[in-house]
């Protein structure tokens, strides 16, 4: 199956004639996004996320390397008709939301009769029906972002590329967008989402990649990234909290963490003391923890990783 998005040693350097030094925004990024997955693209400010997205959309040309989007080179005009894109800090024309979404749909060659239905559908899906005839120029940032999402989805895209899609949304709208993206995945579509809202990404992403200073530092399944293979959290009842180091009692339930190698011994000890084991769970780290670990200043000469 053709990957939805493929970066192959893509490098982007910015240079200005009046500056002797080049700024490397992206350094040999190699990454593959499979069809039908929600892919989280993370990184601190200036990591190169938006640069990577803009290269993929054909807004910029890579200094080195190449990339494919739905099997075609980055920037291919016909391929872009099958893509939905939402830019960071969305900027749209000042006109009624419905008209605006129709304009972007028409630009993407959505046929007339179909366009009217699609406009209705996306406005409904994003809770914009009551704002359809209002001028988008007077919208709050959150509403504008929703209109931005509507224009990204107007062509029923196979691949959606979203740069910070939920940053300005209220919690209700975030849930709506989350459900929308999850539904898209269920329909076999691919979602490539760059975000600083790690909890959002954690909730919906199948895989994530972490970028730091233009380099890919980690990529993998979200579940694997969050799971700690070293620790387990055991919840028991009927024993004193001081039996195990770090044990904490709350409402008659004791929780403690142990290494996975000590699991059997710990459980046997609980039973010997007459306790009852309620649950044994691997300790999950939050994406925020993983993110902070990966983006901490690295020692000089740190290895760059590539992933296909």
């Amino acid at each position, binding site marked *: 199956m053709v990957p939805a998005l493929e970066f192959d040693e893509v490098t982007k350097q*910015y240079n200005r004639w009046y500056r002797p030094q080049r700024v490397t925004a992206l350094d040999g990024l190699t990454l593959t996004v499979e069809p039908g997955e929600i892919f989280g693209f993370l990184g601190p400010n200036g990591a190169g996320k*938006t640069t990577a997205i*803009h290269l993929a*959309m*054909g*807004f*910029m*040309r890579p200094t080195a390397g190449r990339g494919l989007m739905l099997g075609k080179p980055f920037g291919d*005009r*016909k391929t*872009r*008709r099958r*893509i939905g*894109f939402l*830019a960071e*800090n*969305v*900027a*749209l*024309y000042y*006109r009624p939301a419905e008209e605006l979404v129709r*304009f*972007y749909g*028409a*630009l*993407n*060659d959505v046929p007339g009769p179909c366009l009217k239905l699609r406009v209705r559908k996306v406005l409904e899906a994003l809770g914009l029906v009551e704002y359809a005839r209002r001028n988008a120029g007077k919208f709050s940032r959150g509403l504008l972002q929703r209109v*931005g999402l509507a*224009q990204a989805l107007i*062509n029923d895209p196979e691949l959606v590329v979203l740069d910070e899609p939920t940053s300005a949304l209220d919690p209700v709208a975030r849930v709506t967008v989350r459900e929308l993206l999850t539904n898209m995945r269920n329909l076999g579509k691919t979602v490539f989402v760059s975000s600083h809202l790690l909890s959002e990404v954690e909730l919906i992403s199948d895989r994530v990649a972490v970028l730091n200073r233009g380099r890919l530092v980690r990529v993998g399944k979200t579940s694997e990234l969050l799971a700690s293979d070293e620790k387990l959290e055991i919840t028991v009842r009927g024993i004193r909290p001081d039996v195990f180091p770090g044990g904490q009692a709350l409402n008659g339930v004791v929780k403690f963490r142990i290494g996975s190698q000590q699991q059997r011994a710990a459980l046997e000890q609980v039973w010997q003391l007459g306790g009852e084991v309620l649950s044994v769970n691997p300790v999950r780290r939050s994406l925020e923890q993983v993110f902070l670990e990966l983006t901490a200043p690295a020692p000089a000469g740190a290895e760059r990783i590539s992933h296909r």
Partner: protein
Amino acid sequence: MRQVRLIAVNFVREQRWPILVLMLWVGVLSIMGVVVDVRRSGEDVLLIFKQVAAYGVAFAVFFGASAIHNERKTRRILSVLSKGVGREQYVAGLLCGITFAVSLYALAVAMTGTWILEPAGFPVRHLWFLMLCLLIASILAAAVAVLFSTFLNPLFATLSAILVLGMPAAAAAELDAKWADLIPVYALLELLMKASFSQKWTARWDLVLLGFFESGLCWVAASWVFSRRDIAVAID
């Protein structure tokens, strides 16, 4: 073609206030038709008519030099070019939008001119031909400005466009009059500016065709340059 039309209409819509300001000059011209006795002051009215008409070229340069920059600055260009729109279609859309605006202006000036100058004896066919010259000169001037605006900011794009459009005039003055036809904005405007009641006129269709052809060339060049430009970087 649909994309070009949409971008052109969008351009006109976004630039409606400057276009309205441009049209106000036609209003000023028409007021003259009411308050001045054209039969007695025909040459004076014609002079003002020619000046007002020539503003179209200036506006075309300003429209062309700033169109891409404005869209990049507001980042609206990203939403447009993320769709199935080629860079050449985008440039063509902008040029069509400018062409529509200056056509509207040329038409309004031509109609007003016919109303004011015909009673004073100015040949109507000559006047409409001059307005066609104005239109072609404006389109070519806009195309040159758009070409420069693909890689320069509006100020430098305007200055560069003025320089390039003015060079044939300088060459014609210093070397040979035929140099004026090289980029025929000046030559087309000269036809307009030298028009008089007493002049016997001949239609210079060669200049009109050359101007139209060179506008096409500028569009090709602008598309080529623009397709190689990074549009998502900060502009300064």
